[in-house]
């Protein structure tokens, strides 16, 4: 049982790390502020969600597991709104490389 849980954790955390890698590669390689913002927000939040999913089996209690999910949802909400604000600020700045 605990082997299966450990395997699940490793798979989820590796998948999360992969998405973080994808987000960072996008951040480094995309040509334009908006595309970089897109890569950063979407990929990193998904990566964080997968990491949280992977850490859930090792939470020491139900309350801790709920807190983990709550943190992820909060980050999701804040990132979604803040990325919109940053994009509008970038829009006002005008197109730049």
């Amino acid at each position, binding site marked *: 049982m605990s082997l299966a849980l450990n395997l699940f954790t490793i798979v989820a955390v*590796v998948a999360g790390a992969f998405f973080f890698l994808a*987000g960072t590669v996008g951040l480094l390689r995309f040509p334009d502020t908006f595309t970089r913002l897109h890569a950063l927000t979407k990929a990193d939040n998904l990566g964080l969600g997968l990491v949280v999913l992977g850490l859930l089996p090792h939470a020491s209690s139900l309350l801790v597991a709920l807190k983990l999910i709550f943190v992820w949802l909060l980050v999701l909400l*804040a990132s979604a709104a803040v990325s919109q604000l940053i994009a509008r600020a*970038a829009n006002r700045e005008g197109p730049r490389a």
Partner: protein
Amino acid sequence: MPEALLAATGFELAMVALGLVRVLRGPGDADRMMAAQLLGTGGIAVLLLLGAAAGADAVIDVALTLALLAAFASIAFVKAAPGAASDDRAATDPRGDAG
């Protein structure tokens, strides 16, 4: 298990470092505003992994605080950027995007 989580933490930290290099270099203020976003997600991932590796549950509270305050800092940046004098409406969007 803790070693695997620590390896993931190290990888994650490297991602945050690379992201910071790009974000802080970016021409224009909007690129730099992304730094708080980057740390808000990447930094929190590092914290949660560190907390799980050490078995410390209190680190999740630190992640919670970081999430809230990183969002607050990002919004402060956006408000302070030049040209942010009025509002955040996209109505005057020259690209005609309704979003």
